[in-house]
């Protein structure tokens, strides 16, 4: 592989736009001639760009087992994402990737009981793994999903969670929202506390993604429950430009998030400087 192939993007076209929450939309992207622009592993990312506006890294939220298209769940929070949110079906964008290491679904995760803990838009990278695991059900043990958000309107992929995940055997979904809300009869409270309340079996493998503060407290809670850091995985995000470990800005210590990450095991994070 060389940079000429990776820095010069390919073209994609938006074939569907789904409004998930007031500030999150999920875009379906196809190659111009249909099909996927490229294949990827769960947890890997892609650089999306609108020429003249900017380029940024987004995690691919659809599962690799989906052979028809890729999906990106994008929260509106900056210049480029604002622009992306204005896109309609038929809009072409540039796309390059896949970047990063992805989750070790074929090695460390194999045969394990998995617990997914997500907060807000943090579900986006995990959804890829969850659906991958669902499609290869025999390879994995039980699946628990703890997902929390500010309010029930802010739950991403709510329809898929209710219609598919909740109904599937061997998958337990625990939803929570931060504050009481009319029409919500589920759990109310912050994710880290909920995880502690649920008190998972300590031989399970945990995958966390969400706001840094949520990751920090969930991790502390898991350790209290008796988990070891080697059982916990998370995925990081920093400013990136090249995606191939050369432009020099997404490093945490000697590791580049774009190349050596974005997925890190929590004991690896301990060996890295606290600069993220």
């Amino acid at each position, binding site marked *: 592989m060389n940079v000429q192939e990776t820095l010069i993007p390919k073209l994609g076209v938006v074939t569907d736009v789904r409004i998930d929450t007031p500030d999150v939309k999920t875009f379906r992207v196809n190659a111009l001639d249909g099909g996927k622009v490229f294949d990827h592993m769960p947890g890997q990312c892609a650089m999306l760009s609108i020429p*003249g506006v900017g380029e940024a890294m987004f995690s691919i939220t659809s599962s690799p087992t989906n052979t028809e298209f890729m999906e990106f769940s994008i929260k509106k929070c900056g210049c480029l994402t604002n622009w992306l949110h204005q896109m309609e079906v038929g809009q072409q964008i540039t796309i390059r990737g896949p970047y990063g290491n992805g989750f070790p679904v074929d090695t460390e995760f194999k045969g394990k009981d998995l617990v997914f803990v997500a907060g807000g838009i943090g579900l986006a990278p995990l959804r890829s793994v969850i659906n991958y695991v669902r499609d290869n059900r025999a390879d994995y043990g039980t699946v628990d999903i703890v997902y929390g958000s500010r309010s029930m309107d802010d739950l991403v992929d709510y329809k898929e969670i209710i219609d598919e995940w909740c109904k599937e055997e061997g998958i337990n979904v625990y939803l929570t929202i931060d504050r009481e809300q009319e029409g919500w009869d589920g759990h109310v409270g912050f994710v880290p506390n909920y995880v502690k309340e649920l008190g998972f079996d300590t031989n399970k493998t945990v995958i966390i993604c969400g706001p840094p503060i949520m990751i920090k407290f969930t991790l502390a809670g898991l350790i209290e429950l008796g988990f070891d850091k080697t059982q916990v995985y998370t995925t990081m995000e920093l400013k990136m430009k090249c995606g191939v470990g050369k432009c020099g800005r997404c*490093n945490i210590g000697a590791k580049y998030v774009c190349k050596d990450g974005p997925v890190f095991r929590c004991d690896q994070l301990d060996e890295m400087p606290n600069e993220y």
Partner: protein
Amino acid sequence: MKQIKLDSIQSLFKALSATRTLYLPVDTPAGADFKKYEDGVLWSGALNTNRSAKDFFFPQTENMMDFKVEGKTIEIIEPIRPDEDFVVFGVRACDARSFELLDKVFLCDPVDTYYKNRREHGVIVTVCCNKPAETCFCTNFGIDPTAPGGDVACWQDADTLYLQANTEAGEALLQSAADVLAEADDSAADGVKETVKAIMAKLPIQNLDLSAFTEDNLLNLFGSEQWKKLSEACLGCGTCTFVCPTCQCYDIKDFDTGHGIQRFRCWDSCMYSEFTRCAHGNPRLSQVERFRQRFMHKLVYFPANNNGDFSCVGCGRCLAKCPISMNIVKVIKALGGANE
């Protein structure tokens, strides 16, 4: 080994520039810089150029591609790759080593073809430093200024330039200038080498203790209390970065030309406040963190990823150019332990 009298050096430049573009250090009102050779251009005797020679392979700005956007459609236009053969004359040992370090970044998988293309089209002619200055500290990084490397290495005494090819490309280059070159004894430059070695031995910063800069010591160094004091006066400008031969961080930007979008890359500096800023915030909020990043990268992170090679070649440009005279030598002495 070949030789040519210095008073007929112009004939060498003419011969070299006959088949390809020749760049060499030329004096400007404010120090030397690499310029294209044309008739009458004189080779500068300066120890080093203001800017390093990295420009030739990693230019400050470089167009990567163009886009045509119409309505909802986008067209990608790849740029024409420069295919000009060129030779850079008068590179010093430190800059020559910097290419090896840049290679480690740009030529590792995935290969940066923009860089590789330039690298393949360039021939490097190095010249041994006759008068190393007190700001030189290349020897700390295993560089021998009397064996400057490159495709062709040169040594110069009072009236003669000696040339020795190190690679096939260098042989070919010397062949192309065979008419103006005379044969010389292989030991002809030994006198110069001895003189330079004697000068190096007398210079002040030749024995820096770098033993503390190891991957095992990463978190200790990162957490050192000294960074605050060291970075206190730092202005957050990019002088050190941009004159540095090994700094390679870049930015990718889009420019709207009015009739299309140009995507180009340009040098960027980790010293700049916007370097790591993104929509969710900035992990390096103050100059302390940015300053630390630059030196940790050169002394710890880069070696950790590249078999222990430091990302510094001791050229001394940052020592001479920093507006507030804070530099890597002071950092090494402050954090290196035995340097205290």
